[in-house]
Every structure is written in C-alpha cells, then in structure tokens.
C-alpha cells in the first residue's frame, strides 16, 4: 500500500506580472516535498516566503507552472480530477468570517456535502458528527454571525470535516483568534490526526503550534530551507532567526542559558519538558 498522501516534485509557480514586458518573479522555485498519510506537518516561513502559495497547490486552487503536485495518486493538473481532489483535501483559512455562508450553523456545515451531491440522511449524520468533533453540536441551530471568532472557526472546520477529507490544509487558522480559540483549534487538529487519521498540514506563525507537529518544514524565498522533526528544526536557533523566524520561548530560554555556559538541553519544546529539564539541572547539587 502506498503511504504517500502528497508528492510535490520540482514545483515552480509565479503570479502573472502586473507590468507588461516584465518577467514574473518565482514565488515557488523547485519545491520537492513528500507528505506521508496520517502525518501532521507544520509549514513555517516569513510573510512572502511562498507557504500559502504552496498550500493552495494542494487542492488544485493553484496549478503548477512547472513540476507537479500529486495528491493521493492524482495529478492536480488533470482537470477531470479537480473535484475528486477537492473532496479529499479540505482547506481552512485564516478569517472565519470569509468562510461562513449560511444563517444557521448546521446548514453552513452541510453546504459542502450538499454540493458533493451526498444523499440527505447521510448529510445529517456527517453534519452531526462533524459538529461533535469540533465541540459545537449544541450550537447547531444558532446563527454563526453571533458566535465568537473561535467558535466560527470551529464551524468552518466542521464544514470541511463534513466532506470527510483525507487531508486538511490549515492556512494560519488561529491568526485571528484569542488564546482560548487557539487552544480549541489546536485540540481539534490533534483529534483529527489521532482519531480520524487525517493528514494535517498546518501553516502557522506560532512556533508553539508548530512544535506540536510531527514534522516542521521551513520555507524561505520560495524554497524549502529546513525540514525535520520539531526538536531538530527548533534547535537551529540562529538559522531560524536569520530567516526572520523565532523558536518557541522555552527553546529560546535554554539557548540563552547555554550561551552562558549552563549545561541544559536545547530541545525542550513545551513548558512541561522545559520545567523538568531545568528542575533536574538545578536540583543536582
């Protein structure tokens, strides 16, 4: 069985140049990336690094100018497969307000499966399931515009889940949310991976969120600059800072301490690990 969810080979993309006669600039230049089924990959990069452009290739919203993108064995350049690809790969964007289409929560969640022509009783089941997964079932008859940003984003995620996609691409889903909303969205992503086996691609500026992934890919100037487990990537503090990024605060702290000759590990990605490592160091006297 093939374990590959997404295979990107030598992908090049540019937007048409606005001024005539001017050569367009590559936004992506020669990207190679293979994503395994059921994995959770975070993509980092400064604004303009090409990460959102890359994401939009994963469900054929954009098509390669060079190279290819294959999702679940389907080449995105084949127009006959576009619908099938969009059924498999869902997208969640930054602004929940732009993703809500209906006046009632459950109708909004039903929108995509309805468009897929799924029979009504099946839609009912899927909508209820999706709303339960995101913890918004009790709000099913509410009006989305009266909900908080975090709740709206959960509705948008439920709308994608109701399609039962095999892969979901999140493009900065927490950028507009408060800490509670962010925690909720990250919890849902964790559940999707664990309970539904969904392949998750998360584009984010929040290093703490990226640290929860299995793998971190760093984009810079339309190319992949780093690729590895969070513990590997986030310990390359100086390189990341040179790319306009940061590391989780807990790693930054350990790095500062190590610069001053304190012998502590660098790869403490969360508060818990960091506290344990520090306690161990300071208690052995």
């Amino acid at each position: 069985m093939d374990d590959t969810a997404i295979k990107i080979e030598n992908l090049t993309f540019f937007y048409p140049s606005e001024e005539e006669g001017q050569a367009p600039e590559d936004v992506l230049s020669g990207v190679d990336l293979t994503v395994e089924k059921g994995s959770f990959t975070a993509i980092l990069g400064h604004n303009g690094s090409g990460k959102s452009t890359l994401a939009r290739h994963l469900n054929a919203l954009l098509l390669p100018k060079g190279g290819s993108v294959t999702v679940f064995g389907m080449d995105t350049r084949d127009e006959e497969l576009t619908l099938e690809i969009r059924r498999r790969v869902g997208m969640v964007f930054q602004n929940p307000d732009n993703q809500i289409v209906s006046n009632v929560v459950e109708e909004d969640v039903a929108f995509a499966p309805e468009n897929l022509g799924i029979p009504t009783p099946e839609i009912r089941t899927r909508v209820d399931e999706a709303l339960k997964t995101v913890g918004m079932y009790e709000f099913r008859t509410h009006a989305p515009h009266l909900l908080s940003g975090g709740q709206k984003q959960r509705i948008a995620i439920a709308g994608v889940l109701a399609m039962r996609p095999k892969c979901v691409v999140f493009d900065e889903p927490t950028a507009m949310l408060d800490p509670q909303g962010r925690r909720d969205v990250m919890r849902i992503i964790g559940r999707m991976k664990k309970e539904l086996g969904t392949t998750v691609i998360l584009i984010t500026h929040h290093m703490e969120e990226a640290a929860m992934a299995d793998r971190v890919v760093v984009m810079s100037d339309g190319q992949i600059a780093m690729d590895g487990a969070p513990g590997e990537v986030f310990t390359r503090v100086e390189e990341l800072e040179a790319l306009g990024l940061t590391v989780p605060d807990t790693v930054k702290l350990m790095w500062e301490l190590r610069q001053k000759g304190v012998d502590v590990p660098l790869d403490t990605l969360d508060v818990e690990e960091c506290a344990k490592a520090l306690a161990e160091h300071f208690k052995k006297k």
Partner: protein
Amino acid sequence: MNEPILKTENLTHVYSPGTPFEMTALNGVDLEIRKGEILGIIGHTGSGKSTLIQHLNALIKPTSGRVLLEGRDINESKSAIRQARSRVGLVFQYPEYQLFEETVYKDIAFGPKNMKLSPEEIDRRVREAAGFVGVEELLDRSPFDLSGGQKRRVAIAGVIAMMPEVLVLDEPMAGLDPGGCREIMDNILSYHDKTGAAVVVVTHSMEEAARRADRMVVLNHGTVAMSGAPEEIFARGDELRKMGLAAPVMTELSQRLRALGVELPGTVYTVEQMAAALLELEGGRGRA
C-alpha cells in the same frame, strides 16, 4: 505617576437596545490613560475591547457614562469631537485593508489634510511619519504593491501623521511573521519614545503585551476585571485562564518550576527575565 490624559467614567454601551438582540458590551468601565504611558488592554474575543477603544475618539457614543480628554467630555460638542479625533489616533485591526490612495504619500497625507494643515506642514508630517515606520523609500509607490507588513506600517503612519497624543492600536501584530511583529513594535515604541505620546495596545497575545507595557488592564464581559503592573496581572495566571486568556509562557514555566521545587524570586514573564533569574541561581550554585 503621570496625570491622566484620557479617562472613561462609568462607561456603558448597549448595542441594539430594546430589541431581542440587545447586548451590553461595556458595563461601567472606569479607565485611565496616563500621559506618556504604555498601556496594554487584554481580553478575549467579545470582552468589549473593540467597543471600548471606539469610544476613545468618539467614533461611537456611550449609552451612559462619559469619556474625558483632559477633563473635557469629548462628546459635548462638535468641536470637542473634532479635537478628540485628532488628538487620539486609532489604528484598527488589519488597517492595511483601509489603504485607498494612489501612492503611499497620499495615503499618509489623508489625515493631516483633513486637519486643514498647511501644505508645508502636511509634507513635513508625512515624511516624519514615514520615518517612524521606515517607509521613506516607498512614498511614491502604490500601497497595493507592498507586502503585508509594509502596508500595515503605511496604515500606522497615516495615523501617526496626525501626531496624536494618544495612539491606540487594535491587535497591531495580528497575522504578521515574527520579524514583522518586531518591526511594528519597534516602530510604535520609537513614536512613543520620541514624542512622549501615550500608547495603548489592545491584544490577546500576552507575551507582546508584557514586553513593554507599564500597566495592563484586563477586560472581561464588558468590565475591568484586573488592572495593574504586568507582573501583578501575570501572577494571577489561573484567573486569566478562566477568562479564556493565558499567562505568558515564562510565567507558566516559573509556576511549574516552583511546583518542582525550584524557587525563583519575583514574577518572571519574559525570556530575558527568566534567563537572568536562572543565571543568578546558577551563579549561587557555583559558589555553594
């Protein structure tokens, strides 16, 4: 302690009163913004932050209560409103969506032009404001050709060009990468440092609110739930979490460390403070 420049007294705002959608967004808020201070206002979505700041330059009127600019009610007359609009500058969330002129220069000049200043003064202010946010080189460009971070800085310059004595920014760093966040924060601080203006930053990110704020106010359900120095606020991590907020990572770390038997002096909320505290501990250990 500096005297207040802007004050709200028992400020209450009710949306759609008398309808089934009636909602009290602010309920008896007393807030003081002092001359030259940096004030952080934090609260979860729906806590009333945006409603509050729109009162600060009379964009919306209180249902009851007052907003006082150096003791004068800003809603008392048309001239008072006009004064408030130029002395209190508001930068909304995602202000880059409000750019509309053909060039960056014209966009920044829009505010000062409306203040009916002389052409020379307008020119001086545009260049000065562009300098604060580092977009001097971009004045002739179309704002729509710029990157997201550049657009946001141009939008902030448009407000700075009015030389407000109180600069209020709603989530100025939302959606920017870490480099962009640092730049915007430095721009805002340089305006503060050079002009002595009061700066109010509305945010739900504790780390950035913590870094330079002199004082913080926490809004919850339309009322002021806490107010004080950052270290006082962050020491109340459990309460913050109950309000849908979070204490800074370093504050949480120091609490975890305490539970594991490593005592640190005082409240720690930035990486620098934490590193310094731990290095001191390390030094003490060496001597022991």
